């Protein structure tokens, strides 16, 4: 009798829930999609301010999440500005002043080129699996795509956000939306991914929209124009000498 009732219960569970992976499994799948040994990206950043919209073009070379070199290509005002991230240090070179400065202290809280991203967001440690307990809390549809809703709660006090909520595409294992919450539960930032394309053997967004929820404006669009994974990054670009 007991066996029959257990079997009946299993048969009643919807198929999608039966196939529900754990939070950690989902995070692993996301990492394999989004992370790469190295990459080369040509992108556009469209910043929607309260009064106007600005577009900034840039070229980035990166190795893992620790090292990245970005050179701004347009508009003329920003052209030649270079940024170098080496682990937990960040430098910016401005051709107007011909000076390289390390971004630290107060400046880390300033926005990058007036966007919704701050310099400290760029320095944020993305190792979610180590610092968060992930739990699948349900299933929702985002822009017509079925998603797992993943809630990440900090398991150590030394992380930037107490809670993260991620909507992950069930088919392609891409985070289509992410919300970052403060300790008090206030929604601080929101990220949305659009134009998902297959690049090689991975799915990658063509457009990412960042929004600082405490700030006015329509957020910042990050549009990927060209992207290559696992490329050879010229060694000289990942040193301070490349800034001049």
């Amino acid at each position, binding site marked *: 009798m007991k066996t029959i009732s257990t079997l009946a219960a299993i048969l009643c569970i919807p198929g999608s829930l039966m196939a529900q992976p754990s939070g950690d499994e989902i995070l692993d799948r996301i990492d394999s999609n989004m992370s790469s040994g190295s990459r080369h990206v040509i992108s556009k950043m469209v910043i929607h301010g309260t009064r106007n919209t600005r577009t900034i073009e840039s070229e980035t070379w990166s190795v893992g999440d620790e090292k990245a070199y970005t050179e701004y290509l347009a508009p003329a005002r920003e052209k030649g500005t270079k940024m170098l991230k080496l682990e937990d240090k960040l430098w910016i070179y401005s051709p107007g002043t011909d000076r390289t400065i390390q971004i630290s202290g107060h400046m880390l809280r300033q926005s990058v080129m007036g966007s919704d991203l701050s310099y400290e967001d760029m320095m944020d440690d993305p190792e979610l699996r180590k610092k968060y307990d992930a739990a699948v809390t349900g299933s929702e549809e985002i822009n017509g795509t079925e998603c797992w809703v993943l809630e990440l709660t900090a398991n150590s006090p030394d992380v930037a956000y107490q809670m993260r909520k991620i909507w992950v595409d069930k088919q392609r294992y891409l985070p289509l939306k992410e919300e970052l919450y403060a300790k008090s539960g*206030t929604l*601080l930032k929101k990220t949305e991914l659009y134009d998902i394309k297959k690049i090689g053997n991975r799915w990658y967004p063509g457009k990412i929209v960042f929004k600082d929820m405490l700030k006015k404006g329509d957020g910042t669009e990050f549009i990927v124009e060209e992207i290559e994974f696992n490329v050879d990054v010229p060694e000289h670009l990942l040193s301070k000498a490349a800034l001049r």
Partner: protein
Amino acid sequence: MLSIKLAIKNLLGAGLRTFLNVFILSVAFVVIIMQNGFIQGWNKQAKVDVVEWQYGQGQYWHENYDPYDPFTFQDAHATIPEKLNAARQEGTVAPILVTQATVYPEGRLKSIVLKGIDPHQKTISIPTEKLVREGEDVPAILGSRMAMNIKANVGDYLLVRWRDANGMFDAKELKITGLFRTDVPTVDLGQVWIALEELQQMTGLDNEATMIVIKDQSHAEMDLASWEFQDLDELLYDMNQMIKSKSVGNAIMYLILLALALLAIFDTQVLSIFRRQKEIGTFIAMGMTRRQVIGVFTVEGTMHAVLSLIVGAIWGIPLLLQLKKTGLPMPEGYDQFGLPLGDSIIPAYSLGLVLISVVIVTVTTAIVSYLPARKITKMNPNDAIRGKIQ
């Protein structure tokens, strides 16, 4: 006496030329007093203000704290020493916790320094009594400059985001319960003040502070682990250096003015000696020694300084007194540079300042009067009396 009589007669005889020389010299004299008065006034006013609003009679800083490096704030905090508990109860020491934060006035992002201070402190003039919590809202006070920059008023809510001791973000709305007006921008610009306990709770730094301000010397120089005492000399060092450099800059300006006035007197003396050779010859022929003749001309030149003191007093005293009454209004926005400046600077004149100015003007005038007169020693009295050019 004869020299003085002759000098006065000759000066009055020169008419407009004497008046112009005397007037220009009097301008230099009044400007020296005025400029030094402003520097001294500013110095006095600024020091009184910073002691009253910021420094108290000294401060204990956490050993990692560097006010010029916000990067140090994260690690610059420690438990408030028990030795100061009694004084804390009396309000004669004021512990302050400092952390970086971001505010979003009207949806704009602005980096600030969030400071926690005991609402019952009596050590500095910041009106912290407005930080006493009366309801659900966390009270906050701002300086008038900061309020103007972020367009905030009493009763407004200010959204603030900060990181706790472990670096985790948190956000909350603060209610602005008061604005204060101070001449010390370093407790105003880019800062929001809340109650110490609120900030300790928000950051998870219970009973900790970054600095401790003391009201009287009895709490100075105590041996407190992790805390270093900064006396007023150290705290005022930057300001003293700034005032010193400002004094040098001003001295250059009035030295130029003084040099122009003295050049005019020098020229007048050269011209007098050239044109009055017959007179010089006659003096010598009548038995005056060359030194006595030089004395006559030197006194005559120096009399410019004496007359300039009189003329300067006639127009300068009312002007300086009026400036003392009204002060010199400072241009708007000047205080945004972080200098402790009021709406106007009230000059401070002292007897010493006036005496030094009198001595400087008189001695320099005497020197420039004497230098051309030395030529008289080389004059041949026969040629001089005939008016032959030498």
